[in-house]
């Protein structure tokens, strides 16, 4: 399951999480983001229990996008222990995302 993330909860949901956290930075006007959404959803089901999955709307949460220097969307960032451990820019097929996240599980 991919949950909606907002700036206010970023610390609690991402920084203090004990499992790896995957955040999909997206916006409603971005075509490739719309395509990536269902793919991330599938990945989250496949890796359920091993990593937490969130999506963050950059329009509503620009502060977080800026803090993590997201200059192109979709961008997927993997956090572990509150630190950025991996970053992927642009759409990717499911297998690539699973590989990316699995490295940190």
């Amino acid at each position, binding site marked *: 399951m991919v949950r909606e993330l907002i700036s206010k909860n970023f610390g609690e949901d991402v920084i203090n999480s004990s499992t790896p956290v995957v955040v999909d930075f997206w*916006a409603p*006007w*971005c*075509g*490739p*983001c719309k*395509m*990536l959404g*269902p*793919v991330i959803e*599938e990945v989250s089901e496949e890796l359920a229990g091993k990593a937490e999955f969130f999506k963050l709307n*950059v*329009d509503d949460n620009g502060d977080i*996008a800026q803090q993590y*220097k*997201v*200059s*192109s*969307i979709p*961008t997927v960032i993997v956090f572990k222990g509150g630190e950025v451990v991996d*970053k992927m*820019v*642009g*759409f*990717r*097929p*499911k*297998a*690539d995302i699973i590989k990316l996240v699995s490295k940190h599980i």
Partner: protein
Amino acid sequence: MERFDIAIIGTGPAGLEAAINGKIRNKNIILFGNSDFSNKLIKAPKINNYLGFNDISGIELKEKFQQHIEAMDIKINNERINAVYAMGDYFALMVNEKTYEAKTVILAIGMEAAKPLKGEEEFLGRGVGYCATCDAPLYKGKVVTIIGYNKEAEEEANFVSELASKVYYIKMDKGDSSLNENIKVINDKPVEISGESEVKSVVMKNGTIETDGVFILKDSIAPNHLVPGLELEDGHIKVNRAMETNIEGLYAAGDCIGKPYQYIKAAGEGQVASLKAVEYLSKTK
């Protein structure tokens, strides 16, 4: 939405051969390209190495190809595919706002000589982008440079200029432009995109622009940007003997997979790709 069995991108010999074989196998195909088929083909003065057609011009060979696909009732869809997304059990093919769906895809997109700019790949996603309309809101109040190769690039620049604090437009094509007045047009040749952790400037032959972001908007899209996640090798699409790429259900044929760049080699590969796609379809049904 109708989901095609095979979507073929490209109307050179590889794409056309793939199309006729898909049709012979009774698959529901869609072929994207243009009515001239291939610029390289119609420009060839004399061809002596296509078996069965000695001493033929490119235009004559093109006419033979045309007769062949017409006889098989294969139509060419004149739309330009901007992106192909591997969704898992199907592919989404994007034409601006429009989407097509196909179970398999054959890339027969030829080979463009144009190399990426120095720094382009390095700063991708860190200031460099290929879709200005996608990322423009992230540059609200910032300086954006657009390296534009066509008319559509100008439209995108106009859109960006409504959000960015400053837009530079490096014009790479000839002819009139229809850019907004607040855009600064630059007639110079870009050489390098430079920065540290993020883009800082575009270095040109005769000057440098300080910028927060750079969008490169070209006619032809590099294969790995057309299909995100596609694996390349030495600038060509990596395939095995079955013309399979690293993405399941996605095949490639012709110049885009490597040298030698020859018509009949392309056609042969198009055929293999098509037959493998047919095989894959029967397995996944």
